[in-house]
């Protein structure tokens, strides 16, 4: 991992008295029955976010995350410490997602909008949630490699360097994948755009105006 603290990858080595990731992984390898669970729980939310946003499907994301978790559990001894434990975990998760998407791409497309996100379960979707649903739907039109890069960098805030290490490609490749992904999303998200200068994304003003914060 690079020296600069990525917005999402930092924090696991915080000031709390908990053992660092590498120590937990080492304990797991040497037979500590609880160490891996502790390590995985520490990163579970972030890994879930990566899986869900990359897959675009909660069920598929759960499958991929579980596969990745078991794979990491079994392959912990292979971890050589040439990257951070979080990078290693992310890499396993992303690879599990990409594998699943490639396999899914080989099959006839099944399922429709049901899987977009759990956001849609809110009884009264807020305008922000509508926007989110539109963004997620647009994201699903990208090829998996573009989607993974864009999810990590733009959506979840990982640095280009961290993302490159996780995806196993050069930073330049991450940048070009993100750029092409943004260009592809642009026409699909144009209707969501605010006037210049307004940072907050809001839905198109149809009747209801632009009254929300």
């Amino acid at each position, binding site marked *: 991992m690079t020296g600069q603290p990525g917005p999402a990858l930092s924090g696991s080595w915080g000031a709390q008295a908990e053992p660092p990731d590498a120590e937990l992984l080492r304990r797991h*390898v*040497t*037979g500590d*029955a609880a160490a*891996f*669970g502790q390590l*995985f729980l520490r990163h*579970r*939310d972030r890994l*879930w*976010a990566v899986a*869900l*946003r990359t897959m675009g499907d*909660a069920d598929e994301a*759960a499958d991929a*995350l*579980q596969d990745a*978790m*078991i794979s990491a*559990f*079994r392959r912990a*001894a292979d971890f050589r410490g040439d990257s951070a434990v979080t990078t290693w975990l992310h890499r396993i998760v992303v690879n599990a997602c990409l594998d699943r998407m490639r396999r899914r791409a080989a099959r006839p497309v099944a399922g429709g909008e049901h899987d977009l*996100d*759990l*956001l849609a379960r809110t009884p009264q979707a807020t305008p*922000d949630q509508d*926007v*989110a649903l539109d*963004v*997620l739907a647009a*994201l699903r039109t990208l090829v998996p490699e573009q989607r993974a890069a*864009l*999810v990590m960098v*733009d*959506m*979840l*805030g990982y640095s280009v360097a961290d993302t490159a290490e996780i995806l196993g490609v050069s930073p*330049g490749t991450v*940048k*070009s994948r*993100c*750029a*092409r992904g*943004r*260009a*592809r*999303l*642009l*026409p699909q*998200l*144009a209707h*969501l*755009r*605010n006037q*210049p200068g307004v*940072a*907050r*994304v809001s839905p198109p003003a149809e009747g209801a105006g632009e009254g929300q914060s």
Partner: protein
Amino acid sequence: MRGHVDAESLALYAEGELSRGRTARVRAHLSSCPDCAATLAALAEVTTQLSHVPAPSVPSAVAARLDAALSAEAAHRAAAPAPEPAAPPQPPRRNPRWSPATLRILAGTAVALVAAGGIGYAVSQSSGSGTASSSSAPSGQSAHHPAAQAEPNISRGASGGHVMKPRTGPYIPSTTRWVQTGTDYRPGTLAAQGQKLLAEYDTPGISGPSMQPAGSIPAQVSNCVSQTAHGRTVVVVDQARYRGQPAIVIVLAKPDAAVIAVSHSCTPLQSTRLP
């Protein structure tokens, strides 16, 4: 630059991923094209839009499922622990050199039952008196002896029987006499039978119907003899019987004079010193 710049080029431009020449042309175009400048700004807003999608937390159902899977995996590992990578892989065991102390312990218990290369040496050395003092238990009991763990060191011969791997190339002096007397050697009389064998065949120039040319000896037998003799001089080898079972009886010359009976799988059966 004529016309507008496409969105992908603008996005690559924003990331600094265009060539130097193309970057300069796009920059020059942007300075005079409000439409392309607006597209560039819109591309930046895509990033903003993506970043505003709330990060999901793990749904409780997914969390429960992951916990269950992890518990199952941990239980599986506890039931069948994988080999720890910290432990170096065990090298294949072959022809172990047992320490003298180990050999003494073995010799003091069930000497003749040990199935291991070179053990005949310890057997004959520790037999002590000139009488048939060693254990006379059948070789079948050797499985109960701790030394039976040496079994994996014995390679499988082509015939399916056990063949000792020669520690070095088989060395048997050309003066060794190979015979097939048909004698059934007995535990209580091994020394006496060995002396009789010696008396009959340790004579220069002797020949008889039971003599065999050395070249006709199967490699399995000669290897075993070499292994058992362990560098000591072999005078006579009798492919005969011991307690009714096919066996190889080896008589060693002085100063190591001894009679050693081994099975056809080269398991030492009994050893006794000769005066």
